[in-house]
């Protein structure tokens, strides 16, 4: 079921929350709307669900314009951040609610409820009330309620944000598998870039109501359209080295750290190291620049000790210092040839990013 946003904007009073958003989502895709809080991603999802009106522009589901179709007739299913389970109903009644309002007969309802309960391993909870369940269990029930009928698409609004870290990673995997099994178009809102990278077939990065980039996770990561996307995606964040004509971006894994001097390497001092167990983050000072490098787990260096860096020149990103836009290949090729200038920039730049 294809979904299309065409020049959609949303204003609350004078404030523009979503600004001229155009987005085409293909049938069966898992699209993640990613951005910091207040970027308009939840509003976008709510407009699709019909819970907010569209100020200007059009939304299409299956090439049908749905701007004026009430929520209950859009045939979508939504998982809320708060789960929004009906507190006065049992789990079975909660899951069966969409079927009940669609007048499915009892035997059919029971059969379907049992099927999804088995799929999500919540059979033993069916007679309980939501308040008797843990966060993870509630999450599963909310999912079960969404998938119990076959809607045209699933909408998920930060469904994992109320879970603890371990459970979040586990549910993330299950979600992905579930979507793979069901093959239903899914639109998923999150501010967590790791969720976006792991779940999405394509990621739409938003900022201040505007779409920044809409591409596959790998392209978002490897070819960010602008400095905001580059900085928001990836952990730890991309390093930026500010210059007059260009801002250079380089990811922590593309900086190699050596304890001994070597040809072409830049001298730096260690600010601090963070041992992560499987790797080490090295925080470095080069002139007035702060860089983060990703080093092997066994890398050890004292604070303030001297190290040498090698930056992977072919992995660098170049941004316009004013607009933040990624610079064209021509420009970067030209820039890459004058290798010294990168090093010079790094050594002598007195601007902190």
């Amino acid at each position, binding site marked *: 079921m294809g979904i299309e946003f065409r020049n959609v904007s949303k204003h609350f009073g004078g404030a523009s929350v979503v600004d001229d958003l155009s987005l085409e989502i293909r049938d069966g895709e898992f699209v993640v709307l990613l951005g910091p809080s207040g970027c308009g991603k939840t509003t976008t999802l709510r407009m699709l669900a019909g*819970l907010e009106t569209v100020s200007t522009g059009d939304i299409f589901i299956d090439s049908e314009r749905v701007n004026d179709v009430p929520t*209950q007739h859009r045939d979508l299913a*939504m998982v809320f951040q*708060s789960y*929004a389970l009906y*507190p006065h109903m049992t789990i079975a009644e909660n899951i069966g609610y*969409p079927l009940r*309002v669609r007048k499915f007969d009892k035997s059919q309802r029971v059969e379907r409820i049992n099927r999804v309960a088995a799929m999500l391993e919540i059979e033993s909870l069916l007679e309980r009330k939501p308040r008797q369940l843990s966060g993870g269990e509630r999450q599963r029930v909310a999912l079960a309620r969404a998938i119990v009928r076959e809607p045209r698409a699933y909408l998920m609004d930060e469904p994992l944000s109320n879970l603890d870290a371990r459970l979040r990673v586990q549910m993330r995997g299950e979600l992905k598998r579930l979507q793979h099994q069901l093959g239903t178009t899914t639109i998923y809102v999150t501010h967590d870039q790791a969720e976006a990278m792991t779940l999405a077939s394509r990621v739409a990065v938003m900022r201040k109501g505007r779409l920044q980039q809409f591409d596959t996770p790998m392209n978002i990561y490897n070819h960010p359209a602008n400095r905001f996307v580059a900085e928001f995606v990836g952990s730890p964040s991309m390093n930026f080295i500010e210059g007059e004509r260009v801002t250079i971006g380089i990811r922590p894994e593309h900086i190699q750290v050596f304890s001994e001097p070597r040809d072409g390497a830049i001298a730096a001092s260690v600010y601090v190291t963070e041992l992560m167990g499987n790797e080490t983050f090295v925080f470095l000072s080069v002139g007035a620049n702060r860089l983060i490098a990703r080093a092997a787990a066994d890398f050890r260096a004292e604070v303030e000790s001297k190290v040498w860096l090698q930056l992977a020149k072919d992995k660098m990103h170049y941004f316009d210092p004013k607009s933040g836009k990624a610079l064209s290949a021509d420009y970067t090729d030209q820039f890459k040839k004058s290798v010294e200038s990168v090093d010079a920039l790094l050594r002598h730049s007195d601007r902190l990013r």
Partner: protein
Amino acid sequence: MRSKFRYVLLIPALFFTLAPVYWMLTISLKSEVDQFATPPPWFGFTPVFNHYYDAFVTRGFGQYLLTSAIVSVTSTICALVIGTLAAYALTRFELPWRLNRHLSLWILSTRMFPAIVTAVPLFLMMRDLRLLNTRASLIIVYTAFNLPFVVWMMRGFFADLPRDLEEAALVDGDSRLGALVRVVLPLVTPGLAATAVFCLIISWNEFLFALVLTQTDAAMTLPVGIAGRVTQYEIKWGVMSAAASVALVPILVFALALQKYLVRGLSLGAVKG
């Protein structure tokens, strides 16, 4: 020690609320000689039941009781249905020109003037509608007077209910009204119960409009009927007390039945699941 102190604090309140009830009950059971004896016999008198017989068998208090019941129950139901819908609209839909706020205040303002102000206009209206001396007139008036109260009480309960639940119901395919009936109302049952009890008490005890709008036995409510025993020649204390004691029972039973909701309903905001 502390628990004893707690009861000491309750004594004045209990005295003020229960003493009139005790007085009324004893008068209804005393012979006329005992009623006027000084000092009054507090406990040691021979109970008689002839006032009850007099009220409900000889005179038509049964009829008044029935009228009171029909009028207060019907007007309470009407006020709850209309008021709940209005309160839901005021909390959930954004009306233009800040009408949500203005309308709420306007609705409340109808309770700010003394009821007597409307007595004459209402009498004239009911006369022209040929509704004088009918139960319908009282049902209409009581519904109108209870509405602002219902709207304001229910507005508070709806405002406290997370919107996600209704939105989930809508996405699940239910209509607005379906979501209201299947999801919202079950969650504000304590509020509905508390509001219903208040409406019922107000209608049950209402005197002014019942007096103005009804004069016949067939349409008279219990408070008016009781007051009617104050005549030019005598005051029937025994009959009045007997009728009033019986009048107490339905409200008491209703309030006790809803007690578990009342406690939650009266502490606004306690409905969150």
